[in-house]
């Protein structure tokens, strides 16, 4: 089973990468680009035997993949 976890910065935390990329692309003439957000996406493959795979994915995401101080995540089955 494959799960997707997307980790992104909390909206109030400055996305320095996204901002720098947006500005650079704007300067290259791509004026139509209004904003860029940079996130991490993980694809987790979970073994068949695992009892509650969704719970495991949630636990891994909350405890390890996302940094709760600055980030939030969403997880879903693929």
């Amino acid at each position, binding site marked *: 089973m494959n799960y997707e976890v997307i980790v992104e910065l909390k909206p*109030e*935390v*400055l996305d*320095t990468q996204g901002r*720098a990329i947006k500005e650079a692309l704007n300067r290259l003439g791509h004026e139509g680009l209004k904003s860029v957000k940079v996130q991490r996406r993980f694809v987790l493959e979970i073994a068949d035997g695992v009892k509650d795979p969704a719970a495991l994915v949630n636990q891994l995401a909350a405890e390890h993949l996302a*940094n*709760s*101080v*600055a980030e939030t995540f969403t997880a879903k089955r693929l």
Partner: protein
Amino acid sequence: MQKDLIAQSEKIGSLKQAPFISEEGDAFAAQLKKHKINQEEYKVLKTIVGRSPTLPELGVFSAMWSEHCSYKSSKIHLRKLPTEGPEVVVGPGENAGVVRLSGKLCIAFKMESHNHPSYIEPYQGAATGVGGILRDVFCMGARPVANLNSLRFGERTHPKTHYLFENVVKGVGDYGNCVGIPTVAGTVSFDKTYNGNILVNAMTCGTIHEDKIFKGYASGIHNLVVYVGSATGRDGIHGASMASDSFSSAQSGERSTVQVGDPFAEKLLLEATLEVLERGLVVGLQDMGAAGLTSSSFEMADRAGNGLYLNLDYVPARAQAMTAYELLLSESQERMLMCVEPSKWEALQECLKRWQLPFAIIGLVTEGGRMHIVKDGVLEVDVPVGPLAEQAPRYERPYEYLEKNYSDDETFRSTLAEIPFTDLLGKALDDTGFKTTIYKQYDHHIGNKTILGPKEEGAGLLWMKSDWANKGDEYIGLAVSTSCNERYCAQDPYTGAAQAVLKNYRSIVATGAKPLAVTDCLNYGNPEDPAVMGEIVAGIDGIGAACRALETPVVSGNVSLYNTTDGVSIAPTPMIGMVGKHPDVRNAVPAILKEKASIYWLKPKASKGSFGGSLAAKLLNASTTEHVPKLNFEAEKEAATTIQNLVQNKKIVAARDIGAGGMALSLQKMLLSKGFGGKFQLPGTTGPRDQNVIAFAEHSASYLIASKEPLDLDLTHLECHKLGEALAGQSEMSLGLATWPLADVTLRSKESLTI
């Protein structure tokens, strides 16, 4: 724009007034508590404002009167530090201290703490700590040339240590590497005293021409106030008061919005700032550090004795619907406030645009010394500038300083004697560790100046050739070091603090350089606890005594208090940073041996050494009644001149100060990195019972020096013992009665800092 602002500033009287806070009930008490303003302070606040404050005003006072910004608990004691000397160009009070290196070539330097933010979010906390100290230095017009960092973590086995360590190191590295400033030296240790409260102190040194040191302020009525750099978000609001708060483990983690560092923006800000100052485009310039726009605007106005009119509608904001309170107190990173004459505004804009920096005029300088801050047509802040700083609280907090009685501890010494020497040595190597894992992640040679870096294991040394230096000083060097032995400070806060100065003094001396001046970062616990306050007072006295004796004045510094978790304060950690002048980097010697040579041990005459606060005591997990190494300034100075002369005359090939772990550990480390071994004597041993005591005892004024020719030193306060010959290609090493295979040690050196 200027006309419009003048008109606005003249119509303040007709603006709507923001509501005053209510002074009733529990809500009021909670409000004051949240702002860490006590009843007494609130009374003073009201006499300054002349009425009840608005919420933004309360926030401004809270930030400006926080421990972090006002030094209210430490100020009266800090005054006792020596701050003057022939080479001091700018002493404490400015963004950074400045000393003269040669001719007009000066060094601006300072150290800052970022302990609390680094505990909450280690990567960003450490990164923004580096960013903040860089700005302190370059906003004086100095170009940063070296970073240092002082790290203290909890025990290696503590569950959080691995995560904190990995991320702090990465944060320090990524930020400095990206801006392009070499990190040339540092210090790290692991001790349970920091389990719940790590220390991240960052230091920056920059070069500046003596006649171009910028101490700008908001002068010139109707000059424009310009906001430069990243937009403001709700980052780190309450940061200044947070740094003055203590932790409780239950609530850690949810204290504040994380500040995020943007080293690319910092690099642009650095280049733009230096260009702006070089071209004389501004009259005032101040970085927005702790307490952001508030502290920068008040400081700038205060220094000029002027007022400011600021319209927050013009402040570039990143988040929706930010309030005046938030805009004033946000600690978003990589921002500067500049004050510019209208005639230079064109040129300033052109420069900022070229460096791709966002900017906005947000106000102007006014007469009358009041700060008027407006948002959405509402007068949010209306307070006099001067009194806010002048009448900031100063506390003479009660303190207790218990002189302990120290005595030789025979029980400890006999326990120590029982343990196999090689076990002790192994543990000592593991505990102090090898710093490769850290400094490999730091660019330590960008800038083409690094003569001695962390690989050489001593003080950093930079080659400072410059047109500003005196003729003939083509090979002049800047030696830099940071260190503090917290175990000494825990055992004896006064002597320990003095020893922290001395430890740096010795590292700098060991390169052949002459120590010049000091910066500090006084990390202590809760000053409201008289015992902790006693440690602070003793620490400052100890630093003062050492700096006076060594003629190394303190020219800048920082105080970080309330380093406590669940009511327990950290061991006193007065981190010291020192700079020195090397007459000729071509002769400089490293702290590791690179070629075969005879090894000599220099120490005070008849010094028996001691174990108070020693590494041996830590390794045995034993407390001891022994004193820490006694201060002996005569011996320190004699050692310094001796080594400086030996280096200048090219008589030695390596020198290493001996610190924690005593002579045995230093000898092993000095020889290890290039694989030297050999047979060495242990002077003064009478048998197996002496072996460990002599090998691991800690002394003041103690060094290992390596020479290819016989040394015959004329010494008054010191004695010098030849220990033996260091040889290449050895598989074993011996010291006194102990012999051990080098392969073990080499293996340890590769593995010990993986936490």
